[in-house]
């Protein structure tokens, strides 16, 4: 180890020295002394290094620190030469002698050799080994994942795993001396014999058997591997082609093309020699391709001519024009055909292309604004406003152009906006004409254009402002108009309500009104009109008067209840009327009714019930907690109550519970209390994979008992998860059991290769 390190340091040193050589030469002339000192130190170091090479500590040589001209034969110093010692220098004197060539060679080899990496320490090596082993093992074991998953998801597992294949043996094999006896059997065998089907021994013909055993597992696997390889190759090829296609380098493509052309030429020449007719055809093909290339203007800009023209265009007007021509031609050819309406508006020469960029909205809006539909106008103007604000100054001329084209077409409605617009457009058209004129002149004046466009812009802005104001005012008007009808619309409602509100206190005094109201919000499911019993009305009125008008809801309930209970239902038509009544029917009935009336004159069932319900509702409401302490922060004593503010401050309001189940059922009180005894039997913890109680509830909704299911279903629902056959050894699962071929040896290669290490690791873990 130490030797190694030493050698390394030595080499490093020598290299450093070599590197330092060059600058040192320059420096030497200037500061020789320094260089000397430096060299000496290094030399000393080298010596030390060499001396310690063989491991043993040599007797140290006496060092000479003072300057001397004496040269010791033991210690070599470079003092005299005044140069730095290099490895090559050592060998310089021996250069001539051929006997030392081997040593020289060795030295050069040492020089050329790279440093050997320091071996890692033991722990690190072990860690790496472990990591690799873990990865390998994990990979090997990962093939079991599907099996494990399958077993986990399986409804039932039967152990031991391997099952004996039920041997399908024909009955003739199983039972010797079996004979067809029943008429059915006899008939069947007659048929079989007639058709010459195999009856007894080979129940299946050899062909059938072969087809049954058509493909073994190995074969299938091999075939699959083949297919896989083919697919992989194809995909590689495709990927390669794609990659090559993607390469943007023109040079590359040029080279490729040239290579192809060369190849084609060679082949063509060969063909000429071998088969001239085919070669002719080939020739034609090549010619065709060239023609196609020329005809298509594919490389209009990249051609030699085009390039030269581009260079010339800077200085030469003609060249520029030629280039422009070519470009325009190209554009003409490459452009898509435009729709007629748009093309007719295109007037400017160079601005045509730009014009296409103008959003369609502008056109649309204009068209709509011109259109005869007044109902669409409002929305359109707002649109124009938006469009106008959004438009760039460049696009304005186009807008103007549209308007010019449109202005001659038809008359406008006499709206103010329209007048404004028209003014603007006229101005625009004038300007446009002048612009066109300017355009016609060869020297286009940029400044005027700019100024004109700015003018247009400012004007348009002003217009848009005006439009905006107009629009807003109109909007307001509209809104005011809108609100008025709303108010008017709403007014009748208060008028309707008002009487009700006014009536409310006295309303219930007369029951006729109440009855009317009851009719109004009578349940819809009541098909039959249910008038109140006349006789009872007068009796009931005093009782029914509610204390305060605010109990509106209860009143409604009351009304509903009234309706619900006091309606006269159609009497049943019965063939046999009870005998006793039959005799004195009318009289009896009348008497009976009278009796009932008298009996129930005093007590009001409905009122009692409502009262009870109100109490129940109150009782079930969550109570507020009052934490006020009288006397704190203020005077206390008998007859003094804490202030309202304080009470408000210390009152903890209970959260409002869920709505009662009988909220909308006037005739029912449903207890909101929880049945704690039953709740003890309910599930209180959600089992693992479920996150919401409803999910779990769905899985337990089907009963599994035999009371609710057929026997088969019951058995299936209650099958045990794991079934073991008694008296059988359950062996651990093997790769062969699940269709893997790998032997157990290759299963865990790493573990078996270095079992010791693993075991030691296990031991460590155990210790921990």
């Amino acid at each position, binding site marked *: 180890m130490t030797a190694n390190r030493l050698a390394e340091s030595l080499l490093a040193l020598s290299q450093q020295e070599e590197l330092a050589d060059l600058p040192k030469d320059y420096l030497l002339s200037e500061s020789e002394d320094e260089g000397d000192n430096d060299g000496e130190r290094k030399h000393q170091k080298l010596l030390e290094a060499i001396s310690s090479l063989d491991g043993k500590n040599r007797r140290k040589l006496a060092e000479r620190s003072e300057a001397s001209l004496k040269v010791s034969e033991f210690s070599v110093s470079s003092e005299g030469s005044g140069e730095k010692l290099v490895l090559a220098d050592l060998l310089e004197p021996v250069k001539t002698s051929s006997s030392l060539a081997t040593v020289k060679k060795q030295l050069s080899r040492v020089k050329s050799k790279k440093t050997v990496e320091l071996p890692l320490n033991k722990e690190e090596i072990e860690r790496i080994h472990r990591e690799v082993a873990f990865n390998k093992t994990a990979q090997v074991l990962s093939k079991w994942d599907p099996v494990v998953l399958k077993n986990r*998801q399986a409804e039932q597992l039967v152990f031991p795993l391997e099952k004996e294949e039920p041997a399908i043996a024909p009955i003739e094999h199983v039972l010797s001396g079996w004979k067809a006896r*029943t*008429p*059915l059997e006899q008939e*069947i065998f007659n048929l079989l014999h007639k058709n010459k*089907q195999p009856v007894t021994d080979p129940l299946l013909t050899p062909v059938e058997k072969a087809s049954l055993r058509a493909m073994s597992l190995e074969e299938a696997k091999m075939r699959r591997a083949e297919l896989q390889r083919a697919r992989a190759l194809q995909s590689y090829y495709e990927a390669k082609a794609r990659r090559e296609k993607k390469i943007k380098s023109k040079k590359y493509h040029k080279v490729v093309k040239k290579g192809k052309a060369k190849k084609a030429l060679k082949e063509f020449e060969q063909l000429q020699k071998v088969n001239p007719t085919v070669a002719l055809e080939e020739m034609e093909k090549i010619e065709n391709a060239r023609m196609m290339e020329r005809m298509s203007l594919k490389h209009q800009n990249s051609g030699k001519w085009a390039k030269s023209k581009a260079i010339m265009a800077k200085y030469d007007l003609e060249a520029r024009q030629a280039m422009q021509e070519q470009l325009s031609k190209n554009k003409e050819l490459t452009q898509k055909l435009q729709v007629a309406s748009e093309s007719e508006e295109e007037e400017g020469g160079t601005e045509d292309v730009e014009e296409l960029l103008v959003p369609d909205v502008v056109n649309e809006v204009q068209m709509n604004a011109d259109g005869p539909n007044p109902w669409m106008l409002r929305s359109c103007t707002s649109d124009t406003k938006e469009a106008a604000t959004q438009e760039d100054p460049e696009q304005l001329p186009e807008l103007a152009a549209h308007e010019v084209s449109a202005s001659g077409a038809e008359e406008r409605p006499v709206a103010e906006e329209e007048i404004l617009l028209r003014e603007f457009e006229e101005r625009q058209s004038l300007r446009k004409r002048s612009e066109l004129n300017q355009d016609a002149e060869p020297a286009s004046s940029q400044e005027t254009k700019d100024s004109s466009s700015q003018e247009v812009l400012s004007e348009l802005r002003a217009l848009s402002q005006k439009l905006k104001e107009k629009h807003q005012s109109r909007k307001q008007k*509209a809104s005011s108009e809108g609100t008025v009808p709303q108010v008017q619309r709403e007014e009748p409602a208060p008028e309707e309500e008002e009487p009700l509100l006014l009536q409310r206190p006295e309303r219930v005094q007369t029951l006729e009104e109440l009855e009317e109201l009851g009719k109004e919000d009578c349940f819809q*499911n009541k098909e039959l009109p249910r008038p109140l019993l006349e006789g009872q009305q007068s009796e009931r009125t005093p009782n029914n008067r509610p204390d305060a008008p605010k109990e509106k809801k209860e009143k409604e309930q009351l009304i509903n209840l009234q309706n*619900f*209970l*006091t309606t006269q*239902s*159609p*009497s*049943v038509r*019965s*063939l*046999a*009327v*009870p*005998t*006793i009544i039959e005799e004195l029917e009318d009289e009896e*009935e009348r008497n009976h009714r009278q009796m*009932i009336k008298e009996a*129930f004159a005093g007590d009001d*069932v*409905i009122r009692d*019930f409502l009262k009870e319900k109100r109490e129940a509702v109150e009782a079930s409401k969550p109570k507020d907690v009052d934490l006020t302490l009288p006397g704190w922060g203020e005077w206390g004593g008998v007859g003094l109550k804490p202030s309202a503010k304080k009470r408000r401050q210390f009152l903890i309001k209970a959260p409002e519970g869920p709505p009662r*189940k*009988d909220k909308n059922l006037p*005739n*029912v*009180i449903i*207890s909101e*209390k929880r*049945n704690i*005894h*039953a709740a003890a*039997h*309910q599930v*209180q*913890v959600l089992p693992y*994979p*479920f*996150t*919401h*109680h*409803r*999910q779990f*509830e769905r*899985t337990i*909704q*089907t*009963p599994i008992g035999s009371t*609710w*299911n*057929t026997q088969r*279903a019951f058995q*299936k*629902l209650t099958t045990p998860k794991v079934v073991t056959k008694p008296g059988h050894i359950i062996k651990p699962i093997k790769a062969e059991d699940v269709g893997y071929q790998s032997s157990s040896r290759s299963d865990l290669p790493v573990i078996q290769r270095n079992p010791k290490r693993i075991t030691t690791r296990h031991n460590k873990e155990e210790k921990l």
Partner: protein
Amino acid sequence: METAPKPGKDVPPKKDKLQTKRKKPRRYWEEETVPTTAGASPGPPRNKKNRELRPQRPKNAHILKKSRISKKPQVPKKPREWKNPESQSGLSGAQDPFPGPAPVPVEVVQKFCRIDKSRKLPHSKAKTRSRLEVAEAEEEETSIKAARSELLLAEEPGFLEGEDGEDTAKICQADIVEAVDIASAAKHFDLNLRQFGPYRLNYSRTGRHLAFGGRRGHVAALDWVTKKLMCEINVMEAVRDIRFLHSEALLAVAQNRWLHIYDNQGIELHCIRRCDRVTRLEFLPFHFLLATASETGFLTYLDVSVGKIVAALNARAGRLDVMSQNPYNAVIHLGHSNGTVSLWSPAMKEPLAKILCHRGGVRAVAVDSTGTYMATSGLDHQLKIFDLRGTYQPLSTRTLPHGAGHLAFSQRGLLVAGMGDVVNIWAGQGKASPPSLEQPYLTHRLSGPVHGLQFCPFEDVLGVGHTGGITSMLVPGASEPNFDGLESNPYRSRKQRQEWEVKALLEKVPAELICLDPRALAEVDVISLEQGKKEQIERLGYDPQAKAPFQPKPKQKGRSSTASLVKRKRKVMDEEHRDKVRQSLQQQHHKEAKAKPTGARPSALDRFVR
């Protein structure tokens, strides 16, 4: 409790044990040695009940039609998997005209489905979803199996149809008796017992036995089909009510002072003094509870399996003399003099619900077997049918000339009302529909005012107790034609009864589980779940189920600077916040939309209004 109709598990009549000398089983292809046996090949005759009331109908055709018409794309049929298609056509080469399993009609399958798929579930993870899918697949499979086994319910309910336009109510008992077979005709009888006053009566759960008690102390029990008297005693005290306990061997009699229990020999087994002045009795068979309503206003639950009083509830409504049970959820309905009906469970000290039904006092209450409808009659001469599925609103109301004093529902939903000395029976359209009160199905006049009514289970028979004795009248289509042989078998032997008794006791339902919606027991107790969560959070100091705050993933190439991490975090936070705001806005919007009354619809001319 909820029970699904099960295939009739008829127990074949026992063969004589002496005869069982093992003979070699004779095959059909062997020579017929004994010609007489061939004729008698169809097995022992099935227990025939009075289904002969209906005209013979080609049953097979009906079933065939059913199975062919059924168009059920939903019901998945597992196609048979054949390895090679040639084998489908067998050796003979004939094709199976109906390949695959037989189709099952959707409606029948729907009947057995219990998962309410209309309720939306919150979004679930893949693992949960797979569990849900498994549950749903299981439900479907089991319901299909159950639907298939409906085929085994061979018996069909009887019915009575008038000739075109003829009112069935005009058909009197004598006509019916004439039309039916002798065995069924024997089920119509009158017991003239004028001496011991108006009678109350009760059929046992199997419908085989009848017990009746007269006001003046006459108590008797008999096997009414064979008319074999089991016991007849006079308790020398006024008898208010009489009821069989879980089997026909025990008999509870509410006498003037106390409640007494007799066995079928008439021997007094118990005198329960804690239940005094009992007016009405009800027995809850699955809970083994005897509910008694007393003059003192107490509703007492007595567990007859252990002899303990489970609960004594004060109804605070005076004398109780109207009581019935809801067979679906074992809730007791009490009628009160203030026109209300209150619903009780032994687990709660106060009524589960109170329904205002009549202006006058309630005279009679009855609940149908599915627990969907309740019929009440009051002193205001009205007969009402209420919906018990949450709304408690009357579905139909009729005024009777003389209010009904007694009401009873049959197993198939027929309603009988006793008014004076007349009984009226109303029938609905189908099994699950309420009886329509438009027209009575049958009427019958008795020799005295009615005092007790009950339909006999599994027989088309109505028993009426009145001052003149007992009348058993035929009501075609009243009860369930198919019985569950393991649950309530009318033909069971003593041994079978003992077996059943043990099983029933093992499956006894605790009294505290009685509640309005028994399906609620299969739900998670949300309140304690949330409370437990809260406690856990308090204990741990943090919420273990809380969503972990977003932690941006470290990225390379200098994009994982602290600033960019913070920026990314902020982005996610902002997005969440925006979502929240959006949701709350939406909710507000919804609320406003709901609150806003929909005024007059906007007309097309509105656009012209400026």
